[in-house]
């Protein structure tokens, strides 16, 4: 769901991508978020992933709001 350009730097260091370059076009953030939750992530952790850098990008902002339990447009 994130824009590449860094050569997957963070995964190369054994940590998750935090989206320095913002969301990818038509990113399916909900599918990734559900997967992260199913893998044991709690809502706060997943929300923070989308609410750090580029928190105002619509794809990230909507997913962060969904994780906070807020109503979001379909």
């Amino acid at each position: 769901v994130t824009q590449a350009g860094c050569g997957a730097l963070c995964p190369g260091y054994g940590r998750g991508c935090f989206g320095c370059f913002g969301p990818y076009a038509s990113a399916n953030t909900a599918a990734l978020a559900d997967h992260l939750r199913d893998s044991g992530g709690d809502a706060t952790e997943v929300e923070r992933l989308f609410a750090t850098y580029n928190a105002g990008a619509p794809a990230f902002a909507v997913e962060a709001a969904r994780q906070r339990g807020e109503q979001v447009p379909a």
Partner: protein
Amino acid sequence: VTRVRTLDVPVLTRVEGEGALHVRVREGDVQSVALSIYEPPRFFEGLLRGRSALEAPDITARICGICPVAYQMSACNAVEQAWGVQVSEPVRLLRRLLYCGEWIESHALHIYLLHAPDLLGYPDALTLAADDPGLVQRGLRLKKAGNALMALVGGRAVHPINVRVGGFYRFPTPAEVAPVRALLDEALDDAEQTVRTVAALPLPPLQMAYHFVALDPGREHDYPLEAGPALLSGDGTATPDRFPLEEFDERVVEVHVEHSNALHARLHGVGAYLVGPLARWALLGDRMTGRAAALAAELAVPRPVHNPFASIVVRALEVVYAVEQAQHLLDDWPAHPGPACAPVRPRAGLGRGASEAPRGVLVHRYRTDEAGDIRDARIVPPTSQNQAQIEADLCQVVEQNLHLDDATLTHRCETAVRNHDPCISCATHALRVTLDRA
């Protein structure tokens, strides 16, 4: 007729961030000197609230693109103290190495691109490069070596991603180390040449009686850098006063002044004080070793240095020291450094951490709840601490140079601000905003 003379620099150039300078002289008396920082406040301390303290190194790094490592190190030190995390010796050494990279790139940037043009009589580094391309190229090579060290340890040179509370995500591999180590021999030559070049610059005369503050690294032989348990405070001649970081909140008071969006810091019982290369040199310069120490002796660099225009010489000595440290750290890097990260258990706590950013000591304090989330944060960067002293320097510069014409005196004032390499973007990270609606 009352003769009022005003000097205004509405946009200061060759500093990091947005600031201005206003000086007012009436009948030969300096009435007011204001380093006006109008860059908007950035609310980092506010936005850290409610975030996990594990995120503090990554988030606070974004305060500065030139000294992100300083934020990462001070943040890690503070959170590790709050949670009782002990980092391994290889982790500490690798942090020192990463920080050497930052000192090299930040100091090289300031010396060659921001400060040298002033002292050589050029409007900027590009014009200087037209006349002396070799000089500017040397500066860029040095900066590149610093960047390469940061990328080696941190993953990238700006906002490194490999730093975490407890250590690193992974250690660099021997294959990654080799090409960077190969850059450092030339970098040492460049750094030594830098000292010789800047030591020969014609410097405007000025003698200031500074009160210096620098980090006590808590290790007998180290020049202060990646961590330390206490601060040293003094004039550089008498034995300095030493106080633990736990006392920082009582000793250093931050105040809002009307003309600046960055809080001014005052040391209790002292007032304005200075952090940065001059402070480190004055209080702990005897910890310089190797080529840096030999050059300082050969060129008879005084200790303490009282002329702020000579800060460029101390900065250059620190680059030599940092390159040599980096060489030793890489040469002695263990074959089996053990785990890259210590065990970390988030819990409720209060921790303070400090490190020596290129511009001076940077102090972080975090209070966390049981989940390890930040309840409140305090970040005191070097430029906030230096603002009052920079204004005091300016006052002297103006008083002693009233015979200069406006353009020359204004340029002298700008140079005097740049002596302390202010990072305005760092200084406006602050939390509080005062709205005067009266």
